[in-house]
């Protein structure tokens, strides 16, 4: 890539608490930057036109499509990806709930759903099924039919209220 960089910007961004400084071409999508420049491949890319939601990350705590942002736009901001939730040994309660309720099958859409749900449950700790489905309206899943995802969100809400 370095052979053809023109118009390069020095980007400084904090991702999952770690500060990164890197030169990027302005057209590089945030999703590609996270995945390929930083190696944070937990954020998935499913449509690159803002419908599927797999690439959802948190920008200063708000859920956004990382395919609909340029990496340069994250300059000086804080990004949280699925890697910033829990670890294999210490799952976040939402992650635990997804495992317990079988809220994932192929797992491709899951990172975007987890990040979306994290903010949703912070704002609405005791949601109804309908509210959960609304909150998930921007995340497509082809495997689960959403039911176990909804169950997982309810279970996560319970866990987090405790």
């Amino acid at each position, binding site marked *: 890539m370095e052979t053809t960089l023109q118009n390069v910007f020095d980007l400084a961004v904090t991702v999952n608490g770690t500060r990164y400084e890197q030169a990027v071409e302005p*057209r590089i*999508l945030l999703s*590609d930057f996270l995945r390929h420049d930083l190696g944070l491949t937990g954020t998935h890319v499913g449509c*690159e036109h803002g419908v599927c939601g797999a690439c959802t990350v948190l920008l200063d705590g*708000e859920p956004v*499509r990382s395919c609909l942002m340029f990496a340069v736009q994250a300059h000086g901001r804080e990004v949280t990806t699925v890697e910033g939730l829990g670890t294999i040994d210490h799952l976040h309660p939402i992650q635990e709930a997804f495992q317990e309720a079988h809220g994932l099958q192929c797992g491709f859409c899951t990172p975007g759903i987890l990040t979306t749900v994290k903010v949703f449950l912070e704002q609405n700790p005791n949601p109804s099924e309908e509210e959960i489905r609304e909150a998930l309206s*921007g995340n497509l899943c082809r495997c689960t039919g959403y039911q176990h995802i909804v169950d997982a969100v309810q279970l996560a809400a319970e866990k987090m209220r405790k």
Partner: protein
Amino acid sequence: MKPAPFEYHAPTTTEEALSLLAEHGYDAKILAGGQSLIPMMNFRLVQPAILVDLNNIPDLAYINPGDDGGLRLGSMTRHHQVETSPLVAERAPLIHETMPKIAYPQVRSRGTFGGSISHADPSAELVALSVALDGNFRLRNRDGERWTPAREFFVGLFTTVLEPNELLVEASLPPMPPHSGWSLKEVARRPHDFALIGVAAVVTLDEKGLCQQARMVLISAGDVPMVAHKAVELLKGQAPTAEAIKAAAEVAATEDIDPSSDIHATAEFRRHLANVLSRRALEQAFQRAAENK
């Protein structure tokens, strides 16, 4: 699906942004929330030479009370801010009620009020609402500013009166008069898709309970937000009876709109839906107006 190269500018003040627009004209494209523009860039349907990113201009994001009892919204105010603003809920309940229906949560945290208006997609709710609420837009260029009523702002598909060197900086929404009611009815394939048809109605009753003022705007019904002039004329001065509403809805669907066909709905189906939803929207709006005594 990767965007073509472009020259990127991230001004931090409105003045700086306006200078860039003055300098680059048609070659420059404004990047607001990017939720419509970036998909088109990813598809390479749009390949702007220069992007002027407004996201670093904090002065453009605000929700303020207007002196007239209405609202002043900075153009870079995010949908999510509007959705959760108590001031908007109080002063513009129609907007408040509509916000959760716009796209998805992730798009609402990024998309902006002014971006949606300037993009002028006739399927966008805020475009229609700004007309239904009789809003005004403040447009600025390097040399000055002008105000344009929303009803004159939209001139064609994705096309507004904005000159290439101009920027929509603020929307002003007047308060609804007393005894007013409102409604937004939409039909979409999936709840958060572009509406096949949508209808926004704002009505005001006089002391006798007759229709004093009404505005109805249809979404996805033409190349601009379609104002149902003829339908509304039928209602003015009339009691909002079921028959009167039915007749007005019929006129709205047959005479006031010019819907297109696409894979999701033929023009004929859109007219049918326009009729049904106009009726439902007017019914709800008049009922609310009657309750808002």
